[in-house]
């Protein structure tokens, strides 16, 4: 799916992440601002891309402002932003749960 509008989820509180999804011409582009970028930046980038791909969002610009969120928070905020982007609220819990190994 290609993105036409903007959607946001999360806050800039400590241990949270604010994910903003914006239109992008080609591919998933993540712009990460994080206080743990040196230790976890690559991991967070990959995690966000992975979630978006699983939700079939292929062309999107992601602005992520991270305040040390754990993976579970990053996943939740990314999924919420993606659903808001599509204007959907019928969450596919089973599909989402199946991503957890």
């Amino acid at each position, binding site marked *: 799916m290609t993105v036409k509008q903007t959607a946001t989820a999360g806050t800039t509180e400590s241990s949270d992440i604010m994910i903003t999804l914006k239109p992008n011409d080609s591919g998933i582009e993540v712009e990460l601002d994080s206080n*743990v970028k040196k*230790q976890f930046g690559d991991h967070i980038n990959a995690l966000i891309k992975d979630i978006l791909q699983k939700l079939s969002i292929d062309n999107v610009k992601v602005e992520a402002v991270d305040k*040390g969120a754990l993976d579970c928070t990053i996943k939740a905020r990314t999924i919420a932003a993606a659903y808001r982007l599509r204007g959907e609220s019928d969450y596919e819990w089973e599909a989402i749960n199946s991503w957890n190994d």
Partner: protein
Amino acid sequence: MSVNQVKREIPDKYAKQYGVYAGEFTNVKPYEAVKRPIKPITPHDSKMVDSIHDAIVKTGLKDGMTISFHHHFREGDYVMNMVLDEIAKMGIKNISIAPSSIANVHAPLIDHIKNGVVTNITSSGLRDKVGAAISEGIMDNPVVIRSHGGRARAIARGDIHIDVAFIGAPSSDEYGNINGTKGNATCGSLGYAMIDAKYADQVVAVTDTLVPYPNTPISIPQTDVDYVVKVDAIGDPSGIAKGATRFTKNPKELLIAEYAAKVITESSYFKNGFSFQTGSGGAALAVSRFLRKAMIDEDVKASFALGGITNAMVELQKEGLVDKLIDVQDFDHPSAVSMAENPDHYEIDAESYASPLSKGSFINQLDVAILSALEVDTNFNVNVITGSDGVLRGASGGHSDTSAACKMSIVVAPIVRGRIPTIVDDVQTVVTPGESVDVVVTELGVAINPNRPDLIEMFKDMKVPQFTIEELKEKAYAITGTPAKIHYGDKVVALIEYRDGSLIDVVKNV
């Protein structure tokens, strides 16, 4: 490249100059204390000078000399900025500074470094902006990080030769009798400054409160002071206690404190006449609250509490639970007031507090110390100087001194801070070697150092969850993930001295 006993690589140049860490007491050997020149004062001489400028002129301060400051005003200090600004204005360059520590308030130091006014630094700590700038590599020469005991040793042995000590004096008379309990910016103990006064070639007292002669009590005597300057203000009293010592309500910190208190009260050290020291972090401070209850319940009284003194300790003394407070520094105003009023709240200097080369320091008599940490690794090594991103931001303080000397050292830390694991494979920087650390306490439980089988036996029935340090690390990584390695540059920006003067680690630019 040399590798020291905690497996840290020390570049040859520095290894040769300082030696490398080879064990807690390996380098404790007889030595000769430094001599200092004295300019005697005859009966009609005055020590008063009109300004910082005139004091600098009188002392003959010139390019390449070393000056010192104390950090008892903590975030409220005006003196170091004031003196360095004047030195810069006078065109003096290439100055070495040896403050007992550096705070956020000293950010103007960055410009003095860039302009070549300050070219060498030794300090216990480096905070946010100054730490970040030094980690970026703005200095040619690495900063030498010394513990409070290590600094006292370095001054007494002449590793730091102080040409002029500028001592912020909460009150002084015209002849240089100084204390920290009277005046506008009362900081209480002047423990770190007392060493500078005793060993520096020349001493300038900088005060905003000139009192009639003779000023008592005398913390720093007239016989150690060359000049006295009156200025408008030496410090901001509210900055002295900034960020230090409110009682935490954080349930995680309270649980850590509860576990730490249990480690103390279930140890054989917990009996009448025991002694303890607590750091100023949230959990470390809260330990005294749980300790208080156990002391009342079991009718156990302490002979002394040591260290940075906080109001929590003052209250224990007022309740009769602690006989004496031994005070090298105060973290809040009530502690400073107590030292002024109570003869059993006693001021000591940094050398008698913690120097490894004194004829016996107070920490050698200490039973239990509770200390904070930024990181602890699976060898029990502790980092209190760099963040997990490798940037200089903390302080060595008395951590390595107290840990080495006391009978049981307890490091308290949350298992993770946000996404940052506290228990790690390898700390970014070793300040305190693992052999000095006996028990690590987290909110999940404790890990006892295997080199203390006596403690493992002592605590085998303790009702606090116990893990190996590797298990604690695994629990931390399970929450945060495994952090990527930090990529440092090639430039050494800080040398981490062990308290004996050898190098326990170096920090590179990042």
